[in-house]
């Protein structure tokens, strides 16, 4: 295990995965472009031009879903729905197929919900996933523990387990556990599901989904409180440095 990798270039496992995904993207992009029947763009020549040099010239497309709770999660998946070639109206509108051509999918806060949930559920369609999600439940205040929600006692037991294992516990843990019942499949709100285990999910292994990146920020001393809790207020930018 390389415990600390300096931030120079991408993770070697990611580089390898991206190579596999680009092969899949090339096929999907070819289907998409052929469907468009473009008159002033030579699709066969373009595809020929990007189908060499280890897929180096296959475009690295990605999309991001912003933070903003359910509003951003649902707005984001509305976009995913429009770009998905599994939905006939999206194909008809000539946007369906771009989702299948994406290399990366990133999310922050509410935008991380779909980023995690689609892969955790095997990358279903949007119409399928909205049947799994249950946004009508008020999660921090659920009355009883069910397979779809946990009450606060159950959530605090989860937090206690983390604390007893020697880790600090924060409000984010409480919300994380509560919303895991919404977005992560598996018993007890998917408590055994880890992000690193996504590498074993067939949709990831077979490069059938974009590579997921979750983005987050940190609290700094001047951040203003919101209902008594400090919230990260500043915007930021991440530049993923290619190795030179």
């Amino acid at each position, binding site marked *: 295990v390389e415990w600390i990798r300096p931030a120079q270039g991408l*993770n070697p496992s990611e580089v390898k995965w991206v190579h596999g995904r680009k092969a899949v993207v090339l096929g999907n992009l070819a289907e998409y472009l052929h469907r468009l029947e473009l008159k002033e763009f030579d699709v066969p020549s373009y595809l020929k031009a990007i189908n060499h040099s280890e897929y180096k010239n296959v475009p690295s497309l990605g999309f991001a879903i912003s933070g903003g709770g359910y509003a951003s999660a649902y707005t984001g998946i509305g976009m995913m729905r429009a770009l998905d070639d599994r939905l006939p109206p999206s194909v008809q509108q000539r946007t369906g197929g771009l989702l299948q051509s994406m290399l990366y999918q990133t999310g922050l806060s509410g935008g991380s919900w779909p980023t995690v949930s689609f892969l955790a559920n095997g990358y279903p369609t949007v119409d399928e996933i909205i049947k799994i999600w249950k946004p009508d439940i008020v999660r921090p205040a659920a009355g009883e523990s069910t397979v779809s929600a946990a009450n606060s006692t159950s959530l605090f037991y989860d937090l206690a387990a983390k604390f007893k294992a020697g880790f600090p516990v924060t409000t984010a843990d409480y919300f994380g*556990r509560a919303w895991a019942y919404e977005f992560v499949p598996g018993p007890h709100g998917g408590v055994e*599901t880890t992000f690193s285990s996504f590498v074993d999910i067939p949709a990831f292994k077979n490069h059938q989904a974009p590579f997921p990146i*979750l983005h987050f920020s940190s609290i700094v001393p001047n951040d203003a409180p919101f209902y008594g809790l400090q919230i990260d207020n500043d915007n930021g*930018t991440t*530049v993923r440095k290619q190795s030179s």
Partner: protein
Amino acid sequence: MPFQYEITPYEFGSWQGDFEAFTPTEWLGTELEDGIVVNKSACVQGFDKAR
């Protein structure tokens, strides 16, 4: 300005500031000192719950 972080199924870390480094997501929570595991028999797995 706060630093921005990212996590992928492979690694967690930041491209910025004092950190400019990544550590494997699978082993998050494992205590390191100077980039070396403090206690090899106390490596942590399962810290990276998917939410």
